[in-house]
């Protein structure tokens, strides 16, 4: 069975595990970098990106996460996870893992009182995906290798680049597992390819 890890330093970890299991894969909470060797794909969950980055550095996860991606293993970043994947962050000199060629803005829709939910058309996934946005970021621009999967009011809120997937909202907070299932499929394909 496909094994998918959820980076468990902080944030909505349990919900992602539930969603992974509902999509027919095995879920594993990743607290130590050695555990990355056991999994086929990784989810960077929602949470506070500033906090997560500090914990990533603290536990020496940074290079291990980058290597995980460079090996061709799929990574799915949701909300804070999307910020961690981006090459550029508006208003910040330094970005984080720099695995997806895109420029993002943090808290782009405003503060908590501007947080919202909506039905979203995600290319290849669903026309009416229940998307919950919480102090969410969005993607301002993407490189030529990045495929835009969804927009909300002209802002990019889901994208894919090779074996990397990201979204600005929280698929783990609803019972709608279609996007997680889409990622599980990506992981299955990557595993086959890496094995051949």
């Amino acid at each position, binding site marked *: 069975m496909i094994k998918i890890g959820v980076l*468990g*330093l*902080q*944030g*909505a*970890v*349990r*919900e992602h595990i539930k969603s992974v299991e509902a999509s027919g894969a095995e879920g594993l909470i990743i*607290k130590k970098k050695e555990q990355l060797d056991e999994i086929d794909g990784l989810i960077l969950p*929602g*949470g*506070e990106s*500033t*906090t997560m980055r*500090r*914990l990533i550095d*603290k536990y020496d996860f940074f290079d291990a996460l980058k290597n995980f991606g460079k090996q061709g293993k799929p990574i799915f970043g949701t*909300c*804070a996870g999307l910020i961690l994947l981006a090459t550029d962050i508006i208003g910040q000199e330094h970005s984080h893992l720099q695995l997806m060629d895109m420029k993002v803005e*943090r*808290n782009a829709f*405003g*503060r*908590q*009182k*501007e*947080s*919202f*939910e*909506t*039905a979203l058309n995600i290319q290849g996934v669903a026309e009416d995906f229940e998307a*919950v*946005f*919480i*102090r969410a970021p969005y993607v301002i621009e993407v490189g030529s290798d990045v495929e835009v999967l969804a927009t*909300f009011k002209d802002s990019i809120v889901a994208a894919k680049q090779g074996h990397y997937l990201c979204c600005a909202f*929280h698929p783990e*907070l*609803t019972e709608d597992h279609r996007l997680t299932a889409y990622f599980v499929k990506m992981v299955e394909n990557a595993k086959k390819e890496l094995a051949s």
Partner: protein
Amino acid sequence: MSNLGTDRVKRGMAEMQKGGVIMDVVNAEQAKIAEEAGAVAVMALERVPSDIRAAGGVARMADPSIIEDVMNAVSIPVMAKARIGHIVEARVLEAMGVDYLDESEVLTPADEVYHLNKRDYTVPFVCGCRDLGEAARRIGEGASMLRTKGEPGTGNIVEAVRHMREVQAQVRTLIGMSEDEIMTFAKNLGAPYEVLLEIKKLGRLPVVNFAAGGIATPADAALMMQLGADGVFVGSGIFKSDNPAKFAKAVVEATTHYQDYELIARVSKGIGTAMKGIEISTIAPEQRMQDRGW
């Protein structure tokens, strides 16, 4: 089409804070120290609970200029406290764009009978509880997050432990009940029946439950996580310690890795003295903050 302030949006915000530490701060400088240490949010206050306790008198919503300074200083979410039942303080904080409101017993209650109807607000609320009855009443009023009360400003973990154990034990009892027993349980707890049914169905509280009130050391924070807290609030514990920056980092690490005792030993070394605590029995009954609210 999009909807603001739905239950999922409000409760979901608290889900993102799980496994984290929320720290009380009284100015922009402290807020930056908290953010740097890895806090998931800060609570902007005029005075930390131990100073409120020492000062006496009426404790109210903080000066909006303090809250504004803190909001401008950090990119993590900013919470603020309104008095129990103070509709206008809550509306003012909401209008200012505070990310989460705490209807808090640390402040002097404005209403001795009614808590706020938190469903009316777009901004989510966190509320204190000592047992499942109180937790369920607050959820019934629309709280999107809970925290066990403990005894704020004491640096004494005993009440926080009591309340967390009580809530967890009652949730377990409820989950083990057959459905025909729940109405009587609701009556005895003074809890809304529907909320109890929801908890029974989910097998857990429908909202995130942090621990608060008395956490003074990294080991205290890890203890509360081990007892089932989703995260911790540290009030006076950080900025009343000898070395707040070091202390804050140590508390964050102990919270993340609450079962890694070697790590907790390591981060607890050389961080200076924790805040001086207060023995609960020396607090006059009318000074006990946990008894505010019902």
